């Protein structure tokens, strides 16, 4: 447990020292929010949630890539793969939770007639999925550039595709649109349930993917034996 | 005198000369260098002298002590040990034999 906490704490310190990145992270969803502020009710809420998910997955992508150099030697220094990726997940989840609080407060006091509890749920699920999504991309793709492009495509599609389309469910942040409809348009709880299942399933699947990818990358190779 | 050859000769006998000077009385580095120069062996630099002193000290042929001089700052005084005196006596005899051998051979050249 000490090992996971140590990785988490130091990963958190690393993020905290990237002032520029933090600032962009903080301002970026705000730009999304402001861009749709004048349109019909709720559009800005949908956008701020997407903005948050994009900002967080990008942060996770870069954090994951930056850790690539040091993780193999930490593995040699007595860490297991799960210590390393769990620690990093915890750190980034913390960052996400802290960043989403001001946005929830913004929605809470700037918007009327929406289900605030559902908004909070969207934000929680956004933090939960965006972090492993970014880390999974960093584990699977060789460089940050590829990862950034993939993220761009995913969020772009997320914006233009009709959530009612079945294919849209394959997108990672579909739950955000679905629960958003429930929160803003006061639809029936079917939306909430579908979104919740999607979000939770996705969080579990992506976290598992991160675990598997990091386990493979940091596996003990067969030619090497310790006695 | 050819400086390089002088250096080579010196390497062989400097420790003996130092022992001999210390046999007279205890002394410190700078004074030893002056005595060596005055005796005609030539100027000896500190970079050559102190390593020899350290080696003699390590092998127990001299002992050393930091002490205030009559005038001036504290200095490291070297004194020959009984083992050093013994070595000096034996080696001085060997050197005599060696040097007279060299002398005999070289004199033949000079007189020819």
């Amino acid at each position, binding site marked *: 447990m000490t090992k996971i906490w140590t990785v988490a704490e130091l990963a958190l310190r690393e993020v905290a020292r990237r002032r520029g990145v933090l600032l962009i992270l903080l301002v970026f969803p705000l730009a999304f929010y402001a861009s749709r502020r004048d349109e019909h009710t709720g559009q800005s809420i949908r956008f701020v949630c997407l903005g948050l998910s994009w900002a967080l997955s990008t942060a996770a992508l870069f954090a994951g890539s930056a850790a690539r*150099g040091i993780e193999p030697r930490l593995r*040699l220094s007595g860490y297991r793969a799960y210590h390393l990726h769990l620690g990093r997940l915890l750190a980034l989840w913390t960052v996400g939770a802290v960043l989403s609080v001001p946005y929830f407060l913004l929605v809470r006091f700037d918007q009327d007639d929406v289900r605030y509890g559902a908004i909070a749920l969207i934000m929680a699920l956004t933090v939960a999925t965006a972090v492993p999504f970014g880390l999974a991309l960093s584990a699977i793709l060789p460089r940050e550039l590829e990862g950034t492009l993939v993220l761009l495509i995913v969020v772009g599609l997320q914006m233009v595709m009709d959530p009612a389309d079945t294919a849209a469910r394959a997108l990672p942040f579909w739950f955000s649109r679905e629960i958003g409809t429930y929160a803003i348009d006061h639809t029936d709880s079917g939306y909430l349930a579908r979104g919740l299942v999607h979000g939770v399933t996705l969080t579990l699947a992506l976290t598992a993917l991160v675990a598997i990818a990091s386990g493979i990358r940091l596996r003990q190779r067969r030619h*090497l034996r310790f006695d | 005198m050819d400086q390089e050859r002088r250096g080579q000769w010196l390497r062989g006998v400097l420790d003996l000369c130092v022992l001999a000077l210390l046999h007279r009385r205890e002394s410190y580095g700078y004074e030893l260098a002056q005595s060596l120069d005055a005796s005609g062996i030539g100027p000896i630099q500190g*970079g050559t002298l102190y390593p020899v002193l350290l080696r003699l000290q390590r092998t127990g042929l001299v002992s050393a002590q930091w002490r205030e001089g009559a005038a001036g700052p504290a200095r490291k005084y070297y004194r020959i040990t009984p083992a050093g005196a013994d070595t000096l006596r034996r080696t001085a005899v060997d050197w005599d034999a060696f040097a007279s051998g060299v002398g005999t051979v070289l004199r033949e050249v000079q007189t020819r």
Partner: protein
Amino acid sequence: MNSDGWLQALAGELHRRGLDPDLSRHVVAEAATHLRDSGEPPLQVFGPPATYATAVAESVGAPQPGGGVGVARVAMPVRPPHTPGPVRLEVRGITKRYRRRPVLTSVDLTVRAGEIAAVVGANGAGKSTFLRICAGLLSPDAGRVRVHGTLGYCPQSGGTADFLYPEEHFVLVGAGRGLHRAEARAAGRAHAGALDWEPAGRTQARHLSGGTRQKLNLVMAALGEPDVLLLDEPYQGFDRGTYLDFWQQLWRWRADGRAIVVVTHLLNQLDRVDTVLDLTPAREMSA
């Protein structure tokens, strides 16, 4: 160079040669007295500090980089004439190809506790590849590696976290080795001290100079005292003095019974190691 500067440089050089601190002080004090008495410039009387320090170290019997066998300080007994310990690293038949071009062909190496093995070879001969295979960071096409004990690895570059302070690196690696924070910091500082580096302070790794970052890398590899140390040209960016410190440190680790593999392309160190593994392909050697 004035006398004070020269004397200070001498003190540093004597320290680097592993001279007993008391003895060093005496040597420096004696030189200072001599300079005061004679009034001559230090370079004329004693020569360059490094040269004089070498002469002093030789005459008191301290080991010389390039010449000696042991690592002992003056006061310590000289290393006994090679007492090999148990085998720590066994490498058998390692073969590796990159796009069908063979880089390593059936390479064997055995390193025992208290031994240093040097891996040499031209650029591209596969030195780093070999070390990465030994560390388990890369899979070979054939062959196996057995490590009896724990492993520490120092890469040629990278391997540090840009935004963390040196001491945070110690804590991070230390936790993996089961060290508490204070222990890890103390151990890191001790290893750093041997390389003449004071790691306290708030400088992020990305702001360290190349040489200092390599010191950090080396300290990280050595934390937790692993039985086998794999060092991939860790001295890049070291100045001459640090380079000597580095070899002093290697000998201390060897004396402590560590098994060390060090990649190097500088042949003048080879008389200071126990085994040399030359990875230059045979056809190049005959050419």
